[in-house]
């Protein structure tokens, strides 16, 4: 509690509680230790990464469609949730390290993740080739000549940063999805004893 009132900091505290408490409750995070790597058990996320992928795509789509701030907020929120989920997923580390089964699960998950990201990057390269303004065409893009309208092209550093964030979110979410579906249904990561 503050002895002297700090309206700005108190407002930030309230905003943080309002934003994060439901998220942390949803992820069953009760203490700060729950957020750390290498504690607790890995959980399968077979649907949530799909929702986050849709969220990231919606955010990027919003940015492109002109709802810049809304798109940025959705994309960044989906990215933060993606980073949180990764630490609770089968991709998480353990205090005593990964054994060969867990290492194989992480490898296959990231293979899918990087495969999906590479495909997106390749498609993106072709798109940028079409959408890039050409000095020889008096600043017009080839795509705008073909389709008859201007195509979105990342023109500011923030656009490129958000694209990078989108790529990372795709990689992690696809990896978590692949690793989660690689585990048997019902997640049997809890049998310690006999």
């Amino acid at each position, binding site marked *: 509690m503050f002895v002297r009132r700090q309206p700005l900091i108190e407002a930030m505290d309230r905003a943080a509680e309002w934003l994060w408490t439901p998220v942390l409750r949803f992820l069953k995070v009760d203490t700060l230790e729950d957020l750390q790597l290498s504690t607790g058990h890995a959980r399968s996320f077979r649907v949530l990464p799909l929702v986050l992928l849709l969220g990231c795509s919606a955010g990027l789509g919003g940015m492109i469609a002109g709802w810049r701030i809304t798109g940025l907020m959705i994309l960044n929120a989906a990215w933060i949730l993606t980073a949180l989920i990764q630490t609770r997923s089968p991709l998480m580390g353990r205090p005593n390290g990964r054994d060969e089964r867990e290492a194989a699960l992480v490898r296959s998950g990231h293979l899918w993740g990087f495969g999906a990201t590479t495909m997106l990057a390749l498609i993106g390269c072709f798109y940028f080739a079409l959408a890039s303004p050409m000095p020889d065409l008096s600043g017009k893009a080839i795509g705008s000549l073909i389709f008859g309208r201007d195509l979105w092209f990342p023109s500011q550093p923030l656009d490129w940063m958000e694209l990078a964030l989108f790529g990372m979110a795709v990689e992690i979410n696809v990896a978590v999805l692949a690793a989660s579906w690689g585990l048997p249904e019902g997640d049997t990561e809890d*049998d310690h004893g*006999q």
Partner: protein
Amino acid sequence: MSRTIYNRIALFRTDRNLSRKALADAVGVNPQTIGFLERGDYKPSLELAMSLSVTLGVSVDMLFSFRPFPPVADALRNAGD
């Protein structure tokens, strides 16, 4: 091509009176992995298969097979005949 590999890890582990954790510690994996192996949800590397066979004191072909192992009851019945 992926063939099913059957195993008798649970049988020999119980026979040796070992918990999953004890066996896992002995072969250097997490206890969950022993459960995955016993259910046939994970195929071990050659190194892990050999470590398991050494720890359980049996040969690798007694522990793993491409064909299903006969039930213990059948083996006991045959031994009694």
